[in-house]
């Protein structure tokens, strides 16, 4: 008798979910054969946020052939694109790894770290969202984004902050990046003639580099990385620094040190 009730529940369960009988049994027995609880449990844990799964199943159907082909061109083992694949893609887009547009591309692809792999579904979804199917499409989008980077301060900040995670070594995630790499990237971001979205005093920047070298700073944390942009935005020259810098403000300690350094070396 009991047996048949269970079986009935399984039939119902499969009727809803189209899943394997074993899966149905697992969820039902976990929830004491209460079909409502079991269904909730199933949708919660198996399908995650439901909507996402929904999207995912949707998009599978509609990816254009060219886009799928694009993925095949760069992927490894038919499942993901690794660093090498990305390098190739970047090159084919007419970019170098150190171009800021590359960071924009990484941002689009949610490629949060150079060592991360980009999986097929993600790759297809993110590019599809941008309306890209071919390398040429990507080029067009990146051209627009490059323009946006040049003129839109908010977008600039987003890309700047995003870049920290990208260049971080995988094994020290969320920690800090080496100073020489940081300096190279600062140069990319701040010494770029075409960028108008942020104005940074060359004088302060070179003093900052000087300071880092003199004080033998080795590492840059995420907090410093983000705050130094705010710092340069707020203080356009030595004069304004002299007038309104306050060590009681929440600047990271290293920026206080920088200020002190400027005072000690008579720059202020």
């Amino acid at each position, binding site marked *: 008798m009991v047996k048949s009730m269970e079986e009935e529940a399984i039939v119902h369960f499969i009727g809803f979910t189209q899943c394997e009988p074993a899966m149905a049994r697992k969820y039902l027995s976990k929830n004491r054969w209460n079909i409502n609880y079991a269904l909730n449990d199933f949708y919660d844990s198996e399908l995650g946020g439901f909507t996402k799964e929904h999207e995912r199943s949707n998009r599978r159907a509609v990816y254009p052939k060219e886009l799928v082909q694009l993925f095949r061109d760069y992927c490894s083992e038919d499942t993901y694109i690794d660093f090498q694949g990305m390098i190739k893609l970047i090159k084919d887009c007419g970019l170098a790894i150190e171009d800021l547009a590359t960071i924009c591309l990484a941002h689009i692809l949610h490629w949060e770290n150079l060592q991360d792999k980009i999986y097929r579904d993600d790759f297809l979804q993110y590019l599809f969202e941008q309306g890209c199917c071919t390398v040429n499409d990507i080029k067009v989008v990146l051209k627009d984004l490059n323009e946006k980077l040049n003129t839109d301060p908010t977008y600039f900040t987003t890309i700047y902050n995003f870049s920290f995670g990208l260049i971080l070594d995988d094994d020290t995630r969320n*920690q800090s990046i080496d100073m020489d790499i940081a300096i190279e990237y600062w140069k990319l971001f701040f010494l770029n003639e075409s960028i108008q979205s942020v104005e940074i005093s060359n004088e302060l920047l070179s003093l900052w580099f000087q300071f880092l070298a003199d004080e033998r700073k080795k590492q840059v944390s995420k*907090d410093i990385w*983000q*705050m130094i942009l705010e710092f340069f935005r707020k203080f356009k020259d030595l004069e304004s620094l002299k007038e309104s810098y306050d*060590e*009681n403000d*929440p*600047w*990271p*300690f290293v920026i206080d040190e920088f200020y002190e350094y400027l005072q000690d070396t008579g720059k202020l």
Partner: protein
Amino acid sequence: MTEMLPRSHDLDATWNFIEPGINQILGSETKLNNKRVNKILSPTMYMEIYTAIYNYCVNKSRSSGQFNSDSSNEQNSILVGSEIYERLKRYLKNYISNFKRFDNESFLQFHVRHWRRFTVGAVFLNHTFDYMNRYWVQKERSDGKRHIFDVYTLCLMTWKEVMFDPNSDILINEILEQITLERDGNIINKSDIITAIKSFVALGIDPQDLKKLNLNVYIQVFEKPFLKRTEEYYVEYSQNYLVTHSVTDYIFEAHRIISREEKSMSLYWDDHTRKPLSEALNAVLIRNHIDKLEQDFVTLLDSRTNVKISALYNLIQRDFTLLPKLAKAFEEYVKITGENEVSKLLATQKELLMKESTNGSNNKLHLNISSHVSPKDYIKKLLEVYEIFRLITNECFINDPLFTKALDNACRSYINNNELALPAGSPKSATSKTSEMLAKYSDQLLKRLTKQEISNNMSIDDIMMIFKFLTDKDVFESHYRRLFAKRLIHGTSTSDEDEEAVIQRLQSENSMEYTGKITKMFQDVRLSKVLETEYDQMIKKNIGLRREKFPELQPFILAENMWPFSYQAVEYNLPEELRLSHEKLETVYTNKHNGRILKWLWPLCRAELRANIGKPGKAPFNFTVTLFQLSILLQFNNKDVLTLEEIQESTNLSIQNIAAAMVPFIKFKLVQQTPPGLEALVKQDTKFTIANPYKALKTNINFASGVKNDILSSLNAKIQDTNYNAPNDIEAEKLEKELNTERQIFLEACIVRIMKSKRKLPHTMLVNECISQSHKRFHAKISMIKRAIDNVIQKNYLQRCDDGESYEYLA
């Protein structure tokens, strides 16, 4: 006997009837040609006048109703009085304007003379016209005719109009002149002035509301000129006075003036003037000269004469807005005095050293002078300054909160920061030496071996007093613990009770947490004593164990993190004689506390040794030696001569440890080294011979205290004396490093704790919260807090919010 009353409806007759009486009441100077004038004002006469006026008013009112029967009812109720009121008014004007001034009389006297008489008369007159006052006047006024007054007021108003208003300037001038005369020290007729000024108050009548007395007249006519004159007078007076007198004299003079003005002069003025007068005096006598007074303040503090300081304070506190500046000056003064006293102490010490060095021709001047100042001298000096100014604050400033606070601030400043605590040129991050000195002071107080003349008049109260002001209390704790550890291990405390008393006080002044380690150390020593007895009993009970094999042993089991000893593994073989004891003790201990690991701090062990190597027949020597020294000496039981190599082989000690242990032996000639010299000391084939018999004056000899672990480093440096301080510096550096790490950890813990409860907090609030949480241990600098915040962010406990100004806790 009485005359016939006039007919009630006849105004002239009525007036003629009452006029002589009025004259009589007011007191006329011109004799009227009337037979009644010579009479005194009798009740009869008073009644007659009253009746006449009454009749007039009543009759007229009634008859007017009768004669004008055709008029409206309103007229019926008309009250009569205006004609007679007008007559009276005219009469009064005439009367007052006819006053005659005597030739030798000042206007003031003239005014006062008449006023006195007139006001008395006016009261009577008011009564005689009472009926009119009550009915007609009241009716008129309630009808809105505010220029009609009751008779008394009418008298005063007329006086004001005729006598006072035209002449007020003259009158006031005369009064002010009189006052000036009095201020100059002359004797004047005060009562005239008092009366005159009172009259100004009386004349302040509000036509709208007679019952309300106002001070318009008084203020306009008298108070303003009076204040102005007062100011002028004292501006000049104080300036002149200061030319010929000292500021200190002036302070007392100002007090005298103020008390005279406020007390004796108060006879004159109405209470209303009290405040403006005080303010005027404050402005002229105090504020105008505040610069000089403040300058003098320093001089007075220098002189330490409480009466004068007190006088100045009392003067300046009259204007409370001036006090903060004075308190600031006091703070600055105390701070500088404290600093100077310490510098003086250093200078004296320096002189002493100079003398010594010229005598001994031993140039040690490059040594830090501050290390030669005794902790007692230093602490006592700090206290002395505090005590002086505490008394002044108490006696002169009556513990005014502003000044108590200034004193506290100043003391905190000079106690933590002076030439000795932070010599010029110290790095920013340097910690004040006061904490260390205070710890040494405590050590001297609590050490049994301290000489009587030093321990004399030292006290726990002293410690606590300075402790209260320490900014780096954690530094004190760390030094204190170090010295406390030595006292405990070497058993040199005066008594457990004394130690406990200090700990108790520190704990109640700060916190349980603060004295946590110290208390634990104390406990360790007690538990060790228990262990010692247990061990002893165990050996006594066990007959199989012979006493010779188990020398007396005093073990100390110390919790590793509480004690300021860091464990370092040392290459060392325990001598055979002690091995059994060691094993047995470990067994006893591990039986008691299973699972605890014992690490032995060999370099800290001491031993008492009886050496029978004196001349035959003499008592054996008692040596106090370190454990390493013991191991070495024990070797000489078998052989009189040993090479370094042999010693090293048997003890497994490093050359440095052997050398350090050997030096005191050589110095006290117990061991002879061949070849001699420091360099040979470390050579493998150097021979050491024990002196047998050993000749020494004392039987108790302490070799342990002569052990200097740095003996070789000084050898390597080839400099013996100049480098003397180096190890201390290294020690200090190590200490400071430890301290900074500890503080950093403390702050990080603080931040995490705060953020855990607040979740999200702006930067400044977090910083302030950190400062307030750490102030009982040390003064947290902003830079330290920021560094800690950075670290906590780095460790992912915290994240900066998008506004860049606040932080969020990450679970």
